[in-house]
């Protein structure tokens, strides 16, 4: 995205503002540098690999899993990890490895769905509140403050009590719970950036409000949004699996990692593997996302902070 390439109207644009406009790094160059820095970060590389694996699992679940995830086989109920069943079987004889692979699909769906809701709605509200300020700001942010008065899991729990059980409810509950977080961060970033010279320059030249928001503000608040997104993906995966663990999220027999961890809770003494492996997958995914987030933060830091 290039800054508006109008010949500088020498009479209306003051020298400093014009220079600021010209000196702002073109967004395209900025992103490539960020990507390079991200890939150099060791932890982020590991994180990317893990996430890629999970995506492969999710997409290829039907091909990769050796058994049908809901097929019961009481003959091999509760057998420990072995060659035939690398992660053992649960009390119904279902192969845990296959269920874990299918669970990847659910976890990714929830993560993507919830974050999509939070990020788009939250960013929109934050942009409006930060740019318009005044009454609109208060009108938007007061309800956000109220929502933020509920600790994360609690809000998701309350929402899922309203929305019911099941995958869609979980996505909605976790998605809505995240809106105030995004709104607050974006609003702060917008208020920061708003007073910068290139915005003033654009207003001086008479750019309409929409264009200012879209072309000048948005690319520069992108950094906090991206960071917040990775943080929220981690939170979404954790919260969604917690909801399913508690019994108010995805219901059995659907193989969701949180629900699977719960299923093994009462037979720990007999079969430690039923709870351990699904929980391990959750941790790996969240760890990977956090590592990517850390890498992104380091990569974005020196560069897009205008």
């Amino acid at each position, binding site marked *: 995205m290039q800054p508006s390439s109008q010949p500088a109207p020498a009479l209306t644009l003051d020298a400093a503002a014009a220079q600021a406009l010209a000196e702002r790094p073109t967004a395209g160059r900025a992103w490539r540098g960020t990507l390079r820095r991200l890939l150099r970060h060791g932890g982020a590389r590991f994180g990317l690999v893990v996430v890629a694996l999970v995506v492969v699992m999710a997409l290829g679940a039907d091909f990769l899993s050796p058994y049908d995830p809901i097929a019961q086989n009481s003959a091999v109920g509760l057998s420990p990890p072995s060659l035939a069943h690398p992660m053992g079987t649960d009390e119904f004889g279902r192969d845990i490895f296959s269920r874990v692979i299918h669970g990847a699909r659910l976890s990714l769906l929830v993560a993507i769905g919830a974050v999509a809701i939070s990020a788009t709605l939250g960013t929109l509200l934050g942009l409006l509140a930060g740019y318009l300020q005044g009454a609109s700001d208060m009108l938007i942010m*007061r*309800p956000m*403050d*109220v*929502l933020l*008065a*509920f*600790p*994360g*899991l*609690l809000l998701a*729990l*309350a929402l*899922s*009590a*309203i929305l*019911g059980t099941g995958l869609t409810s979980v996505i909605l509950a976790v998605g809505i719970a995240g809106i105030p977080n995004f709104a607050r961060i974006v609003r702060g970033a917008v208020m920061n950036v708003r007073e910068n010279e290139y915005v003033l320059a654009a207003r001086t030249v008479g750019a309409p409000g929409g264009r200012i928001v879209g072309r000048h503000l948005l690319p520069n608040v992108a950094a906090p949004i991206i960071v917040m997104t990775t943080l929220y993906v*981690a939170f979404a995966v*954790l919260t969604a*699996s*917690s909801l399913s*663990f*508690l*019994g*108010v999220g995805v219901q059995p027999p659907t193989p969701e990692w*949180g629900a699977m*961890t*719960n299923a*093994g*809770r009462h037979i*720990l*003494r007999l079969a*430690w593997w039923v*709870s*351990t492996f699904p*929980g*391990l997958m*959750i*941790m790996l995914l*969240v*760890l990977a996302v*956090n*590592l990517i987030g*850390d890498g992104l933060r380091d990569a974005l830091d020196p560069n897009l902070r205008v």
Partner: protein
Amino acid sequence: MLYYVLKRLLGAVLVLFGVTVLAFAMLHLMPGDPVRVLMSSMEAANSQTEIEQVRERFGLNDPLPVQYVNFVRRAATGDLGRSVLKGRPVATMIAEVYPYTLQLAFAALVIAMLAGISLGVLAALRHNTWADSASILVSLFAVSMPDFWLAILAILVFSIYLGWLPAAGTQGWQYLILPASILGVRAAGSIARLTRSSMLEVLGRQYVTTARAKGLRERVVVLRHALKNALIPVVTLIGLDLGRFLAGSVIVETIFARQGVGKLLIDSILDKDFPVLQGTVLVIAATYVLVNLVVDVSYAWLDPRIRYA
């Protein structure tokens, strides 16, 4: 200072009102007739007269604003309704289990602070050595682990395999160790991270260099001058963490079979006992708001620069 406190107090009161609106609105946001929601756990037959009776009993025939005012008025006097499942007053049910959750939360906070601060200070002092990287890694793991999984692992190792600690129950301090540690782990991780970066920043400041130049022993420099100032931002985390403990108690209390507000909340959702759900949500959120208010004020007291910002 007073002005700051009053401003914060006003903000908290406003948010509290918003919280009551949300708690009240929950009933009406549920899909279907509020009467059905309230009755869903009652075995009474759904005859027309009984539905009308329930409607009257819960004041559902009044216009919404009136219902809301009554709700707030009653809540302010400590009446949060009655459980539809057990018939007991909700406020009593909450008051009975609240102390257990508080106990758990404080124990978790103590553990988190001890572990987190020591880890953070250690990492800062041993900056750029393996100890530093190790503690960063540990805090990263702490923050990424699902608490319910960590709890299960802890039970597996400490309870079943080693037999050191009990896994379920509320009586006695031994029963508190595992749940409080699990609850505190994630907080310890974030406290460690913040302490480390804050400490690193403070150690680079001029007054620290001056103290060293004065010839003070390193230990005095670190403990007396650097640590106090480094801990200021950590105070804000404590408020957040206490709130998270309230929420996290849902999972920990369920797994370790402890009574508490969290367990009350999840049970009320699963049993569809709506008044209990409403009351618990209100109490937990109100507690969180108050705790954050106290933390905000104490932060201003500790760091005078904030008051005049």
